[in-house]
């Protein structure tokens, strides 16, 4: 059977592979090569070695400050989103009236696109700040916390759904047994429920981590980096380097490669972490 199927490789794989080559394989290979070149279009590249990478770290490039902003934003978002989502999931697994309606409402923001969301929140936040005669772009702190709130608002429902699925799989006998042994609700939570939903926690940590780290649309819409690029995240910094002014395409590509390496490192760390957890169980 395998042999007959093999003869059909063109029908089965070529449409996907050709599209995949156009969208990913060729651009990726070109991207790696061009990060070592000076160019304004893909056609006129000249080899410059590691110059682009050196330039990427110059302070005028804003890459290192964007990295700092992104890291701080990611840490705060991951902690707040997961704490809030887990708390809400706990509340929603207690057979309160209207659980399904709440679940529907809480998940909804996750479906709305980043650009539309970003402008919706920009209008909201500016409406509040208007009373104090200021706007979201006048202070980097407003932009930072605005982004954190936006990200929480969008992601809590999603993570909550995953936590609910995990909590529902905790065997009731375990919780009953803990109760009989005289555990307080807090002890039951920390010693029984949390270890039992560890796999959900890992999934949610990774999703919030990579979504926050790679954030672009929301950042572009909410502040567009203002004031003075102080609220610029990595993805937006790379975008601005490519399209903000000509002559820095190579530096932009080098930054993109660095960004890619950081993202892969996070993914690998995550993978090894999950593996080690699986061994324990």
């Amino acid at each position: 059977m395998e042999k007959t199927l093999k003869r059909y490789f063109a029908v089965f794989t070529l449409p996907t592979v050709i599209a995949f080559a156009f969208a990913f394989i060729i651009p990726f290979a070109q991207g790696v090569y061009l990060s070592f070149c000076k160019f304004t279009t893909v056609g006129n590249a000249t080899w410059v070695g590691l110059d682009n990478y050196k330039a990427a770290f110059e302070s005028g490039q804003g890459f290192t400050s964007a990295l700092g902003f992104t890291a701080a934003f990611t840490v705060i978002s991951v902690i707040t989103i997961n704490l809030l989502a887990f708390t809400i999931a706990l509340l929603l697994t207690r057979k309160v009236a209207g659980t399904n309606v709440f679940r529907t409402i809480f998940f909804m923001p996750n479906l709305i696109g980043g650009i539309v969301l970003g402008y919706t929140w920009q209008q909201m936040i500016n409406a509040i700040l208007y009373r104090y005669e200021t706007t979201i772009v006048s202070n980097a702190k407003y932009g930072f916390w605005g982004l954190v709130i936006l990200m929480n608002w969008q992601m809590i429902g999603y993570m909550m759904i995953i936590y609910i699925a995990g909590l529902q799989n905790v065997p009731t006998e375990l919780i009953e047994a803990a109760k009989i042994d005289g555990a307080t609700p807090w002890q039951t939570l920390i010693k029984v429920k949390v270890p039992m939903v560890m796999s959900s926690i890992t999934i949610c940590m990774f999703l919030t981590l990579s979504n926050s780290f790679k954030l672009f649309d929301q950042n572009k819409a909410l502040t567009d980096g203002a004031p003075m690029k102080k609220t610029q995240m990595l993805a937006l910094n790379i975008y601005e380097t490519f399209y903000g002014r000509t002559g820095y395409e190579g530096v932009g590509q080098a930054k993109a490669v660095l960004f890619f390496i950081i993202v892969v490192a996070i993914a690998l760390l995550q993978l090894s972490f999950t593996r080690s957890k699986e061994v324990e169980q």
Partner: protein
Amino acid sequence: MLSAKTKASNKVIFVVLCIVAVAILYPLLFILNNSFKGKFYISADPFSLPTGETFAGLTNYVNGLIQTGLLSAIGWSFFITIISVILLILFTSMTAYYITRVKSVYATVLYYMFVFSMVVPFQMVMFTMTSLADKCHLRSPLGMCVLYLGFGAGLSVFMFSGFVKSIPLEIEEAAMIDGCNPLQTFFGVVFPILKPTAITVAILNAMWIWNDFLLPYLVIGISTKYKTIPVVVQMLVGSNGNKDMGALMAMLVLSIIPIIIFYLTCQKYIIEGVVAGAVKG
């Protein structure tokens, strides 16, 4: 049975959940409310309901639609999303079937490349992919669909092949013995079994393609008639200095309505799909 104490604490939880629900819904109600106010009244008093003097009826909607051409953008968003999702379901399920059933170097390399592509951030291929699309005349709605097939291939192939592995070979062998060629076997026997995964893959892809901003912004651009919803919203806010706040609010509302309708009608599939996607991804 719930004890009296649990009942009392559930009441408190219910109130807390109501407060969270209001917080989640508030930004959406905020733009809905302001979309009915005259544009000069919005910044002065954004939190009050429109009254006789400030009520603008549908003026903002009419103005916004004239300024932006959002209706045609909704049309193009539907077109690109639907065609891309159909292509993705059809071709990536075939590819996944092939690379799971055939043991060859080609199949293995392909599989790992698809998995690898899921980790790579878009910024890595942003510039090179845009120029390649330009060279290959892919700067059209149909070209976009080809690119989405390529970008969506990673996750889709990964999810389909996970499911194909669990299908017993005997069913396919029986079909082969009955004289089916691989295509007939796939569409007659395998594809119907893949249906639950196909729904998940369709929903995950539809969500990100519908909301995607950067790819259509870079590839199709802003000077054609093929703009999608996020591109139009970005242009309305990002470009001109004298913003029509009323029109902006109205357009944000119109951009969100299709998503809410989609969510409320397919809620069960969407939530299941998103959880399945998160756990496997």
